[in-house]
């Protein structure tokens, strides 16, 4: 109300309509005495009744389908509490993973292990260069000692980078590795720990790694796409990436010894790959 307009503002009338206790005495008194304003309050009440009578709408079938499809395509962004839960997630819709697993880590690693063992006899610089080149040629898993400190919020990007980065970008120089600057090489020799920095998980033996992968996947003879002896949130950890579908991978972050059992699993995430 004002000198020019003796009637309350419509929002004040709307407040009266719902019995808002904050409405001033003056406004209430005016509405009680003014037939026009009382009519407006009644009209606002009518609008309110109409709003309350609007029906709940049902989501159309095509929208339901679209939502379900979007969720079905969505990589999990959850942290299962246990290895069993992670396995349960892998248990659904994993024909691609099963096909890949049939190849077997041991079969594909055999070549890598022999080759990298051979490379140990070469000088450090050549070993790094050769193993990087070998990573492109070999069909087996990519074995890294990247020095990456994986983080939950960045895991998707870090894993994609590790899977797709050119070997030259993934590998730092042998001098860096030897100096413990958190660097490693693509296709680093399995079992070689001398290149690891203090924060980076030491490499497992091929047998330990196969046992670890089998335990994570729940399927003996599984073959990972990537193994990175690195760290997670500042602590040594092994990142094992297993195929799930053609465009999706499962990322297991495990403790550096990857001992069998739930305690080994630090984090699990399903990540879509380009």
């Amino acid at each position, binding site marked *: 109300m004002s000198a020019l307009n003796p009637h309350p503002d*419509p929002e004040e009338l709307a407040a009266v309509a719902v019995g808002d206790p904050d409405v001033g005495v003056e406004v209430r008194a005016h509405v009680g005495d003014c037939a026009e304003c009382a009519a407006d309050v009644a009209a*606002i009440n009518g*609008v309110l009744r109409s709003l309350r009578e609007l029906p709940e*709408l049902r989501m159309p079938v095509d929208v*339901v389908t679209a939502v379900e499809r979007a969720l079905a395509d969505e990589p999990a962004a959850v942290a299962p509490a246990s290895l069993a839960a992670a396995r349960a997630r892998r248990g659904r819709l994993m024909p691609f993973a099963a096909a890949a697993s049939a190849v077997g880590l041991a079969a594909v690693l055999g070549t890598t292990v022999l080759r990298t063992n051979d490379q140990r006899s070469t000088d450090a610089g050549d070993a790094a260069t050769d193993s990087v080149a070998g990573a492109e040629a070999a069909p087996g898993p990519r074995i890294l000692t990247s020095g990456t400190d994986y983080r939950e919020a960045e895991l998707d990007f870090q894993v994609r980078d590790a899977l797709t980065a050119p070997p030259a970008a993934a590998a730092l120089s042998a001098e860096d590795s030897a100096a413990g600057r958190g660097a490693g090489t693509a296709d680093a020799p399995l079992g070689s720990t001398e290149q690891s920095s203090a924060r980076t998980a030491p490499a497992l033996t091929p047998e330990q790694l196969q046992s670890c992968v089998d335990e994570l996947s729940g399927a003996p003879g599984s073959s990972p796409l990537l193994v990175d002896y690195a760290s997670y949130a500042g602590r040594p950890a092994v990142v094992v990436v297993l195929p799930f579908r053609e465009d999706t991978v499962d990322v297991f972050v495990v403790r550096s010894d990857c001992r069998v059992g739930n305690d080994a699993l630090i984090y699990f995430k399903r990540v879509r790959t380009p």
Partner: protein
Amino acid sequence: MSDLHGELDDAALMARHLSGDGAAFGVLVARHRDRAWSVALRTTGDPTEASDAVQDAFLSAYRSAATFRADAKFSTWLHRIVVNACLDRMRRARVRATVPLDESVAATAVDPYDAIAASDLAADIGAALARISADQRVAIVLVDVHGMAVDEVAEVLGVPAGTVKSRCHRGRAALALQLGHLRPGRAVGGAPGAAGTPGAPGASKDSTTPPDPTPSET
């Protein structure tokens, strides 16, 4: 969905989802999708935008499930995500718009609601909702249409309860003006002369502003 899932409350389903139960989130979607759709359609006023918004919202909820606090109310959390998805869609649609806003509003104010209206009155209400500000519209949809408590809506919108009440009062008055239920000369905000038409001489800024999707206080 198993019988077990159907018996679990929302918090328990979220806990199961986070522990790797692949079916739990689907139960939550089935349980809340109609409400999410109602809010999205009535907020955006556009079935296509609403469809995209609810997809965005459920994906966002799925992805950020780990941030859900066990002591929170799932429906409040989800409403917040849905409303934010709607406002985000509306912002982007506004940026995309190549016609003057008033014209675009006039062109779309009625037709989208024709598709959802169960009656002429519902259509009129829907068209009127499309003409009030987004802030007021969201508050009206949540409080008046869907019966949520003012305090809960305040939590959804991240504003004080008094702000929600104020938006509701202004929104109800603006709707009454839009529907021609108030005497001629009434104007929200006390300015005489507004006839409920956006841009009408003397129309209050808050009464019938075009659907500005950008909340002024959120």
